């Protein structure tokens, strides 16, 4: 999936390319098979475009259960193997609170307040991103 028009198959989550960063926007309720398909798509996209980063925008997500949590962790792990950094952005307070109560703190997963900030962070030496704890290699 390259930058341009996203393909909407049933439940298919589009992967957008912004330069050498991939942007994935999760909306509403994601069912299990779409999540697994997404994992695959991201892996392929990183490889195809030699992406440096993957930003997953979860500002529209109302529920993150252990399954989705595992999917996010796996996407990050896979991306790292392919030399790309993953940032999960825009988590809602109610979702964050619930995940912590569930025991799903996803340590090691990089996060940002907004997708915009996350994407900007891949662009250069933005001090804001340093504080959001994204290790971007050389500043």
């Amino acid at each position, binding site marked *: 999936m390259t930058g341009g028009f996203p393909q909407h198959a049933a439940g298919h989550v589009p992967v957008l390319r912004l330069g050498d960063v991939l942007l994935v926007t999760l909306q509403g309720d994601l069912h299990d098979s779409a999540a697994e398909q997404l994992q695959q798509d991201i892996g392929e996209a990183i490889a195809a475009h030699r992406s440096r980063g993957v930003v997953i925008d979860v500002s529209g997500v109302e529920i993150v259960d252990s399954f989705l949590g595992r999917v996010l962790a796996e996407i990050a792990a896979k991306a790292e193997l392919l030399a790309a950094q993953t940032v*999960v*952005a*825009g*988590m*809602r*307070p109610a*979702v*964050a*609170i619930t*995940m*912590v*109560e569930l025991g799903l*703190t*996803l340590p090691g997963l990089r*996060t*940002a*307040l*907004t997708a915009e*900030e*996350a994407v900007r962070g891949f662009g250069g030496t933005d*001090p*804001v991103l*340093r*504080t*959001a*704890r994204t290790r971007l290699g050389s500043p």
Partner: protein
Amino acid sequence: MPEQEAAEQHGVPEREIGDFLHRRREQIAQRWADETFFRSVFTVSREEAVDAGRALVDALAQVAASGRVTDPEAAGFSQVREQLARMCAARSRAGLTPSEVSRDVAALRPPVVDLLVAELRDAPEQRLRERSNLLTVLMGTLRVIVMEAALSENQALIDRQRMQLMEMATPVIKLWDGIVAVPLIGTLDSARSQVVMETLLESVVEQQAHFAILDITGVPTVDSLVAQHLMKTVAAARLMGAECVVSGIRPAIAQTIVHLGLDLGSVVTRASLADALAYALRKLGADIVPPSSHGAGER
């Protein structure tokens, strides 16, 4: 006359009361519709009040017939419990205490007793007294149920107000662009820490804050539960892309934390709110410099 024939039946007194209530249902409901308890709740439609009254009479009749006049848990009451709860809630909202609501219900007794007395006017006094007492006991049980419902509603109101109070008592302050702080005062129990966490995280979104300072100067003791609550807030903020700093660690608190072996993870801590603010500002790329020494008298 049908009443006298029924009276000669010598049925169990409870069943007689049940029959009486059933017979006089309409009259009782009509009289009740004008009593405060019903009138003040069903302000729009008198017919609704009468309807509610009918339902209540039916319930009382059933309870009487089942012989359970002293039992607030009697099955006959179950059909009107929700209705009574709603009426109590309405009276509570109007500012009445549970006792006052219960007195409202006490006022429902005289109209019914009047009707009973009228019916048994020609009966032996013993009989009238017996039936009248039974009716009084039954209405007393109704009062107990209403009292319980009113107290329950009261408790729910207190719970709601307590939550509101906790929310108000948790001011989140914007210290700088991108930095918010919440001074925690008093004991940090489970309920309060929930409110703190929610309020703080909402503020992180609103202010787009990268740093949230939790100042525990005003928290008297830090035990493993308090530490757990703090860590949850820290973890949740992290998931959202913000970093928490815990400030106000007095030496005594530091001692306790070490002594108890509490694990604060990798959260940054500082002794004072000022130190925490300096930390956050530096991280944001701001530089804090003392006033320039060569600028004399810059006022």
